């Protein structure tokens, strides 16, 4: 137990901050994912074949390729890509991107592919009459989406989004390969310096279980809120 003490003697505070880091990366990645879903869901639902193709390409490739490979692509290719863009604008110095940004971008793109599928499914399962009724009432496109489609879609999407959240949360453990100090990386460091990997990795497992448990409870509440009247 003294291994988990706070302060200089134990790893308690380090692991606490690492847990916060995991939560921060997961939330950022989830938001990045929503951003991608916002772009690609309309593409997948579009009338135009070419746009459909682009949307399908994104979700198929990302969901068919291991997360670790995507992370390596970002880790090794991220600063190269940024430097290439910078060189167009006449900046030739070395640019290093922060591990947090690389990690949450990589995980975000992955979670975005799953979110896109969830949103597509949710929108498709809304009754066509709702769209037509909104049109008949003369509500503009913006109002149609935000006041009529979105609230109904959220109710249908939340259970599946909670799965996406769980996947995202667990995927953040893979960012440890890039050196970002989250739960997994911190446990690796602690295990290395105390030669007690069994304890620290088991403790990491407990932390992840705790995170999934707490988030499930919160999501259940959200689900209740959005399914009022059903």
């Amino acid at each position, binding site marked *: 137990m003294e291994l988990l003490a706070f302060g200089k003697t134990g790893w308690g505070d380090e692991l606490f901050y690492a847990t916060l880091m995991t939560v921060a990366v997961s939330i950022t990645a989830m938001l990045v994912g929503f951003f991608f879903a916002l772009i690609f869901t309309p593409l997948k639902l579009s009338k135009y074949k070419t746009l459909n193709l682009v949307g399908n390409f994104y979700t198929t490739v990302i969901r068919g390729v291991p997360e670790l*490979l995507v992370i390596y692509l970002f880790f090794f290719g991220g600063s190269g890509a940024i430097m290439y863009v910078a060189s167009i604008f006449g900046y030739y110095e070395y640019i290093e991107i922060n591990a947090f940004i690389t990690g949450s971008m990589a995980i975000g793109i992955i979670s975005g592919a799953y979110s896109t599928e969830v949103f597509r499914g949710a929108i498709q399962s809304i009754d066509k009459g709702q769209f037509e009724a909104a049109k008949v009432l003369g509500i503009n496109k913006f109002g149609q989406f935000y006041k009529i489609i979105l609230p109904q879609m959220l109710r249908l999407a939340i259970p599946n989004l909670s799965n996406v959240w769980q996947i995202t949360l667990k995927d953040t453990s893979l960012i440890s390969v890039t050196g970002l100090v989250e739960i997994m990386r911190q446990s690796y460091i602690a295990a290395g310096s105390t030669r007690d990997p069994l304890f620290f990795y088991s403790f990491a497992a407990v932390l992840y279980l705790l995170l999934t448990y707490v988030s499930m409870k919160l999501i259940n509440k959200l689900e209740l809120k959005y399914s009022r009247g059903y």
Partner: protein
Amino acid sequence: MDFDLMITSFPKLLGATVVTLKLLSASLFFGLFLGLFFAILRLNKNIFINKFAYSYSYIFRGTPLLVQIFIIYFGLGQIEYLRTTFLWVILKEPYWCAIIAFTLNTGAYTSEILRSAFQTIKPGIIEAGKSLGISNKIIFYKIQIPIAIRQSLPAYGNEIILMMKGTSLASTVTLMDLTGVAKYIISTTFKPIEVFIVAGGIYLFMTFIIHNVIKYLEKKYSFQQ
């Protein structure tokens, strides 16, 4: 784009794909039995057996696969007693550690898939079997299991694809699978995009094959023929 690198790295990556496929098939094979075993425990009426099976699937589904591999590969070696038993022959090999971790992981997901498949079987079918005087054992093996397999095929297909992606984590315990070799080539040539396209292409090809095989099986085992 460095096409030469793509062409020269293709055979190396293809060789590493064999390791990926070996890991995948071994863990799916053992995982299916483990999953079936725990699915049966979940259906047991005894609350302790039931809770035990539930906590197994909860723990393995609630923690990242990476943690599970690390506990088995780095953690278990720490227990002095284990080093003296025959288990150490297996546990000192990263290859077997990876297979054990993947098996336990896919077993947890498979048990959930099979459990829900068993639960959706209509009681009438089992009652019909009983009233025909068929023994419980035969009802289970000849009626419940075939129906459960058909019910769970779509979900199990997804699980196979998830597991195929999961095998990439073997590269974190020094195994040179497809992702491991891809990382090695990237870190020596600093050409991530080219290698990603080739390695990702191989993964996508495998996903495509698995997807279509499952689709074929679904058609084959569906009622409407």
